[in-house]
């Protein structure tokens, strides 16, 4: 599903060149549940940006579902993002003046899906994440865990191939963290989606089937985890 070969990425600030990714080779198969770990400055955010087609890379190649992702125009990458990738963010990034239903339906708006159809599907997904009753509430009326579940529903609505989650539990307490992780795990298990979770929490990483440890722009370790008893 995801095929990275020799990905390099550097940021230039003035005369300084900061080599953030120093050659990443990574293969993630369809239906895998992978966590990316690393301390800050290890390049994990940059890697996620590249995986999410939010940023470009200097050298190497990135194939997503067999398609080479390179030198795309903004419009092309917007189209690919909306078809292939569902994002889950640390700070939820729900739109404050839209209710839960509208937030979930938003990606379909950019795909040109009619309003009625969008809303039907959004309601279905809200039901799936257990928030059907909250459909018409604004984000600031929801708890953090509820917000993240709405965000997951939003990530799922465009039937993506990959879910990219950036510290999905970073802003949550441990109980709600586990609820959200359960949801992501079930998405992976029941829908067969590829899920990539960026985290720095070991117990979160331990719930995934494979952990990739980054250090100084390189893959330090690639560990296959034992199935955990934590999954309820």
């Amino acid at each position, binding site marked *: 599903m995801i095929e990275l070969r020799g990905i390099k990425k550097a940021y230039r600030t003035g005369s300084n060149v900061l080599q953030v990714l120093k050659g990443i080779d990574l293969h993630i198969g369809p239906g895998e549940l992978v966590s990316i770990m690393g301390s800050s400055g290890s390049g994990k955010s940059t890697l996620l940006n590249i995986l999410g087609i*939010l*940023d470009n890379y200097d050298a190497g190649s990135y194939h997503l579902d067999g398609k080479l992702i390179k030198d795309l125009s903004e419009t092309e990458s917007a189209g690919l993002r*909306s078809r292939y990738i569902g994002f889950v963010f640390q700070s939820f990034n729900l739109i404050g*003046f839209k209710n839960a239903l509208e937030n979930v339906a938003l990606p379909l708006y950019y795909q040109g899906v009619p*309003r009625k159809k969008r809303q039907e599907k959004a309601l279905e997904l809200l039901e799936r994440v257990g928030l059907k009753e909250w459909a018409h509430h604004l984000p600031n009326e929801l708890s953090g865990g509820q917000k993240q579940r709405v965000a997951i529903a*939003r990530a799922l609505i*465009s039937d993506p191939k990959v879910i990219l989650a950036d510290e999905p539990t970073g802003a949550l307490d441990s109980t709600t963290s586990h609820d959200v992780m359960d949801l992501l795990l079930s998405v992976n298990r029941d829908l067969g989606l590829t899920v990539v979770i960026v985290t720095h929490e070991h117990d979160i990483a331990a719930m995934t089937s494979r952990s990739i440890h980054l250090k100084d722009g390189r893959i330090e370790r690639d560990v296959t985890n034992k199935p955990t008893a934590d999954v309820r």
Partner: protein
Amino acid sequence: MFDREKWAEIFDTIGKNKLRTVLTGFSVFWGIFMLIILLGGGRGLRNGFEYDFRNTAVNSINIWGGQTSVPWQGLPVNRDIRLTMQDLEAIRHGIPGLEHISGEYRLWRGRSQLNYGENYGNFTIKGIQPEYRMLEQQTVIAGRFINEVDLADARKVIVIAEDAQESLFKDEDPLHKWLQVNGIPFEVVGIYQFESGGRGQNQSSSVFIPLTTAQRVFNAHNDVDRIAFSFSESTLAGSKMAEQRAIGILAQRHRFDPADERALWVGNNLENAETFGQVFNGISAFLWIIGIGTIIAGIVGVSNIMLIVVKERTREIGVRKALGATPANVVGQVLLEAIFVTGLAGYFGLVCGVGLLEWLSGVIPPSEMFRQPEVDLTIALYALALLVAAGTFAGWIPARRAAAIRPIEALRDE
């Protein structure tokens, strides 16, 4: 364009920043409002002056005798040039395309006294020829104007205006009554319509008698004060040519330098009208510049606000892009909002401006200087086109800024 989602978002941002939006919209409102008021006012001035000229055949020339200021053919300066009936006939036959011509001999109202029984009044007496009626566009409302027979027989007939009728005859019908002009009896044969005001601010009217009668009664022999004539040519060049030709004829007859500007006083109405036209076009252009300047100030305001809105919503726009919004989506959104705010505010300005002008033309009495301020449909359409352009322009820079926002903004931690 007619997308519910887009509109919902526009109303939402506007609703969240009511005061800011109202203040911004107000500057555009004010720009358009001022433009309409200025242009309407300019139109009122023009209408006032056009009204002044309504009684004058526009393609006509008036000539008065003057005094030479240049020696010519051995003749000295400061000779009085007195126009005569022979001059008039020479012009009548010497100007091709001449339409109407009339001499005028005038007795100012300080030197005249009219009375009918015990009722007295002072009016300027003008001895004229029948075609005078066409030159000054007089409307006869009862009886008739001076005719050729009156002129040939030097009859003692008089045409008076409504105000003279009122002061001399009260409620009596003046037609075929005899009144006294400086003690000489004249028969009233007609009444013409008189409107006070106009050029020269005439507050009271003139009365008309045949030119021949005037010359005889007031011992003027065959002198005329003024020769007025109109011609079929209606171009400025044509009128200048007729003017030069008439001056040439008179210069030859009275032996003065045709280039002597003081030998004759010449009023070319077409030239005057043209000059006024140019002055008013200049005023219009000036008013447009001021109005557009005001609107530009408004546009800058809207543009500024939109920039702030875009900046405030950077993260949201980043999220939208991560969720699949294309740059075109984002640009469209910002542009639509800018056009909506400027369009709505400007439309209000347009309506208020037109409303105020309507009200003003109702309460301000029409005068020579100013009457019927108005904006025509063309100006309103121009203003509207200007608005849409303004809105697009106001939104353009902020929209470009929004489109340049990178979706990784969404991943940045707060």
